[in-house]
């Protein structure tokens, strides 16, 4: 009942999950974020930076489970400019343009958000202390 009430009214514990991202020369990168057991998320936004010195395609996908067997959808995918570019959901702009609001994305336990930086060929690589930020509301749900 508490879980249902949580979605009838604005609720949930706001979390901003910051992840350091290191990109290496001629190598693709994937970071997976899985909704823990007993939790339900309302995704607010995802930001993925490109700290490399060449453009990379950054793709955000949602899968049903951590094993990524069943893809639910591609949420954003576009070329992100070197150093200054950002891939952001829900805007999907691939630039430093502002993100949009009022898109509701509910994720169940096991759902996995997978962010992939494409292999760009030769590059210097780079690391960003806040290269991936996932912002969501989290509530506990009973089985």
């Amino acid at each position, binding site marked *: 009942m508490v879980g249902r009430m949580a979605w009838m009214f604005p609720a949930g514990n706001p979390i901003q999950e910051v992840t*350091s991202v290191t990109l*290496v020369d001629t190598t693709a*990168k994937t970071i997976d974020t*899985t909704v823990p057991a007993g939790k339900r998320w309302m995704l607010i936004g995802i930001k993925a930076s490109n*700290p490399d010195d060449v453009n990379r395609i950054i793709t955000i996908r949602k899968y049903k489970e951590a094993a990524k067997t069943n893809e639910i959808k591609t949420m954003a995918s576009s070329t992100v400019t070197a150093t200054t570019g950002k891939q952001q959901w829900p805007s999907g702009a691939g630039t430093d343009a502002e993100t949009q609001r009022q898109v509701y994305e509910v994720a169940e336990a096991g759902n996995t958000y997978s962010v992939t930086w494409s292999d760009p060929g030769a590059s210097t690589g780079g690391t960003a202390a806040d290269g991936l930020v996932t912002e969501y509301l989290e509530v506990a749900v009973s089985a």
Partner: protein
Amino acid sequence: MLKESCPFCGEMTEMLLVEGVYKSTKCSHCKKDLSKIVVPKLVAEKPDLKAPEGVLDEL
């Protein structure tokens, strides 16, 4: 739970939460320490908030 791909072996390995930030750690498959990878750090460009020389001379 966060996992990242290891550039050494290509497998997915868990990341470590350190002071509120998820960071690379030793790969659970090939045992290479991903935190030791040396690449340039991204430094966000910040605008120069100080007026150029001479601009404020009239004030």
